[in-house]
């Protein structure tokens, strides 16, 4: 019985640690640095991945389907309009909007798991391209800039 109680306590403690580590708030400067590191991942896509063509480029149906997928899977972290959220960077930033579609597809497929972005290869390839089509339809809202120093 004692062992059981000890294990339950240990489980609760570890769960609490994992919950707090997952949700810990970040000051703006730290958030900017984190976002910048995630944007930098776009440049790491191999040449072959960057050169891939989006089969749904400018397809209005793919934009609508991509919007649905975005709301289901991405809005929680990146914000309802992809403007960025507590956990994920803005996807309207120039870094994303000017990136080749293949790079965005590559990030969706591989995630940035050490920085909190999960792997999305569980979505079949056509759905990932539909998401890319939607993201590209948003247009840039300007470069991501560091917060003003106090």
């Amino acid at each position: 019985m004692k062992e059981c109680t000890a294990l339950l306590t240990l489980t609760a403690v570890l769960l609490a640690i994992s919950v707090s580590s997952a949700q810990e708030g970040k000051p703006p400067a730290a958030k900017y640095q984190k976002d910048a590191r995630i944007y930098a991942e776009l440049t790491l896509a191999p040449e072959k991945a960057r050169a891939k063509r989006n089969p749904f480029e400018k397809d209005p149906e793919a934009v609508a389907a991509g919007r649905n997928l975005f709301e289901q899977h991405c809005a929680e972290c990146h914000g309802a309009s992809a403007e960025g959220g507590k956990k994920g960077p803005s996807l309207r930033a120039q870094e994303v909007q000017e990136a080749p579609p293949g790079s965005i597809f590559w990030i969706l497929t591989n995630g940035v798991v050490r920085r909190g972005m999960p792997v999305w290869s569980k979505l079949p390839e056509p759905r990932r391209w539909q998401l890319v089509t939607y993201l590209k339809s948003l247009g840039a809202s300007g470069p991501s800039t560091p917060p003003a120093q106090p």
Partner: protein
Amino acid sequence: MAFLRFRFWLLFLLLPLGGCFSLTARAQESPYIVAYDHYLEEPGNLEIEYFSALGTQRAGNNFHSFWAEFEYGATAWWTTEFYLDGQTTFGDSTIFTGFRWENRIRPLKREHFINPILYFEYEHKSGADKILKEVEGHDVESDFLTPNAEARKEHNHEIELKLILSSTFKGWNFTENTLAAKNLSNNPWEFGYALGTSRPLALKASAKRCTFCPQNFSVGAEMYGGLGDHHHFGLRDTSHYLAPAVAWNLPSGWTLRLSPGFGLNDNSHRFLLRWGLSREISGFGTMAGRLFGGRR
């Protein structure tokens, strides 16, 4: 009485979670019930799952086992999960049979053709456990003949290690799980396996939200069984199952799974009918953090 206590605890745990959080995520869940693929829970999300298994028993009473799972994405590379198990043996009794705590870790940063996941589980269960979440060693149908009152007196502390190798190609997922389990008393290591394949019925998403469209369904099959133990490795005196499976991801955020399983030899239960219901709560970590006074 034990049954009522168990249901009380289930309600105690499930009601506040299910009722308080309205932010549900619509995950793309696989139809697997026994096998694991390499996809982890999204960070900060909690998935609450309930599963049932109805099993036939030769020379004994049929049974209904059930378990609740609380699966939490601690990070993008670590998912932790807590289980509560119980069972009803018809004509006998309903009892709580134990708990499990499992962890799945993704060691590689990127997606590869074959993706490994490391799995570690601790189980504290009684001898009456019948959830058949995995089949290992020389687990056979006749093990379940012991009456609950006697079987529940046996307490097992067990660790279980799995290597999950999973691959997704053109919408198809193929997964292979190898398991090694050790009862922490003086028992040998036992081995088992689970194989699975699945695919969504449609690879493209439709532009309109829909309930019955093919994109919301995934179908597949899994096969699992024991591989003996350290002293007698192999297929002799082991049981094996083949189970087609289907998952329906509803737009409301719920996922339904159904899997009829068939025993492949005389050591296996002839038929297992499993079904499950799950719901994912996105942003659970943030909400729980606020509850405990975290930063807004």
